[in-house]
């Protein structure tokens, strides 16, 4: 892992709120993380933990209003994406930051041919001629493993299967050779055998193209298989962050620890009873003044209810936002 080098993407103190009829929802609170060149950062959390909102805030993909990015910096090669104009941002989206969404059926346009949809960013950002864009689009389809690519250029999205559509989405996201690829639950809608195909493809593409990837998922197994680092989110904030091997082996936050235990294993000993995390995730109608996990935490004490813990370093590259000292087991 390249240590000390300037990160491609550096997010500091990001805060996003939603204005709703029943008040403001503080979806993302002071989220900071950085992404090194060529690194794969896994982001895990439950629905409502703020993982997707964080990533969509980066390049202004949330409809504003109701959303409002209220603070922080998003530095892409030192340039703050929250400060630049919309046309400048549009030049960055697709060209330098690629996005892959969960459901390829709703993110592909059903009335355009797949080939045209891959050519669109090439024409918009790369200044290629139509013929050049077409050649490049066929290359991209081949790159993501679509058989008979030239012929499939004139197919419509509904003529592809779910896994193939996700490959097309990846091809579009990679079209302009972005520095950062953000993949938001890209395999959640797919079956396990198809998910395995996509994970294999991403591993291969990383080696070939070397872009940095942010991979959002709720599946710890996926993270364990592909990520270099993992960032665990809960209640709109980062609760733990570190290298995958370290976090899975020595999880420090009670939420991470519980999450790892609540998923039944496929091999090894079988527990008679699953460890459940009782209670519900919080609804953030205000910026939390206590630890958001306090109500469900097995190690909660008085301080957790009055002070939201700051992230603190445990080891170089491994930090946790928790008042409790986890025994190093």
């Amino acid at each position, binding site marked *: 892992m390249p240590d000390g080098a300037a990160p491609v993407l550096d997010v500091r103190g990001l805060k996003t709120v939603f204005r709703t009829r029943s008040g403001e929802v503080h979806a993302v609170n002071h989220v900071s993380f950085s992404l090194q060149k060529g690194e794969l950062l896994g982001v895990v959390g*439950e629905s409502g933990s703020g993982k997707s909102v964080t990533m969509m805030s980066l390049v202004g993909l949330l409809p504003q209003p109701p959303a409002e990015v209220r603070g922080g910096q998003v530095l892409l090669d030192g340039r703050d994406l929250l400060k630049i104009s919309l046309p400048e941002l549009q030049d960055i989206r697709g060209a330098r930051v690629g996005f892959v969404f969960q459901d390829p059926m709703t993110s592909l346009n059903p009335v355009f041919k797949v080939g045209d949809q891959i050519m669109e960013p090439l024409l918009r950002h790369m200044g290629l001629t139509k013929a050049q864009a077409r050649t490049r689009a066929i290359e991209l389809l081949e790159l993501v493993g679509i058989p008979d690519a030239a012929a499939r250029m004139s197919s419509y999205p509904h003529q592809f299967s779910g896994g*193939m559509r996700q490959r097309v989405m990846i091809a579009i996201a990679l079209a302009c050779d972005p520095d950062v690829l953000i993949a938001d639950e890209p395999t959640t809608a797919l*079956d396990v*055998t198809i998910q*395995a195909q996509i994970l*294999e493809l991403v591993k291969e593409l990383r080696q070939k193209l070397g872009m940095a990837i942010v991979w959002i998922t709720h599946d710890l197994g996926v*993270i364990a298989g592909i990520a270099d680092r993992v960032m665990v989110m809960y209640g709109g904030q980062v609760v733990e962050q570190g290298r995958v091997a370290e976090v899975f082996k020595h999880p420090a936050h009670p939420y991470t620890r519980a999450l790892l235990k609540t998923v039944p294993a496929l*091999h090894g000993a079988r527990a008679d*009873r699953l460890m459940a995390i*009782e209670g519900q995730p919080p609804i953030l109608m205000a910026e939390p003044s206590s630890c958001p996990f306090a109500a469900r935490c097995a190690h909660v004490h008085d301080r957790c209810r009055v002070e939201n813990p700051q992230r603190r370093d445990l080891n170089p590259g491994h930090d946790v936002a928790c008042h409790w000292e986890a025994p190093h087991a």
Partner: protein
Amino acid sequence: MLDATVAPLVQVRDLKMHFPIHSGVLRRQTGAVKAVDGISFDIRAGETLGLVGESGCGKSTVGRALIRLYEPTAGSVTIAGDEITTMPPEALRKKRPQMQMVFQDPQASLNPRMTLAQIIGEPLVEHTTLSPDRRLERIYELMDQVGLNRRFANRYPHEFSGGQRQRIGIARALALNPKFIVCDEPIAALDVSIQAQVVNLLEDLQDRLGLTYLFISHDLSMVRHIADRVAVMYLGRIVELSPRDDLYARPLHPYAEALLSAVPEADPEQKGQRIILKGDVPSPANPPKGCAFCTRCPKVFDRCRSDRPALVEVAPGRQVACHLFQPQTVPNTSNGPGETRLQQQGV
């Protein structure tokens, strides 16, 4: 453990569920989607049978056809000794209290205009003659059983979280003291931390009330936790049916093997050999000739493309539908499962 000599509570024989395809100006039937194409299995009383497979393999259709939410095309289903598929409507209605269902999406399966008490009480109104007071008592009892606070009885489904809504669905399924419950992906729509709560609840209820479950899921690690035996489906047929520990220790059918190897495990050091299947699942309207898995199988050979393998017992309690396994060649040693050898042919 379970007693094998007890007659099974649910017996399914050669169940088929075909959905017609109509096309052309006259809407004539031009084909059929063979969602379930001849499957047989038993579920013993008190047992949980896991039914796994990928989307479109027909697992949910099996669950629905079993309790006749669909009219099966062919085959027989008996539940507690009664034939379900040919039962006249009035008799079927009387039978319904014994067989219930928990649906995948608690948002869609709960009426948004009914309060929690009305939802849980509806089966009681339909099938019993309880007085309103006795009914409310029973509703409270059911809410206690599934861990819902009695104070919530007059609230509406949208006021609850996904996990709590699933508890409402379970309470409704329990209202009439069923023997058999089909759980159709009951945890698929829930967050990881909530899934364990619901699975623990289902297990507690099974222990307390002696329920029998058909647990339909695509989550193989959760099925390993909850099921006693597991049936793996592919394209409308069962390809393997084995006791849970045998299946997870050593899957026999190449599809079961690939499926298990594809599950990502939450352990960065577990670098098992992953079998990456090529291509997609064929359409059930036009399944391949021979074995349904022959288009993707890494161990395919000539016979697979012409003959359809039958589901046969290849080891005690283990059924596999694959030409690689021949039942006659299994030596029946009594030295435990480790000694059971299966002769492989053809590769």
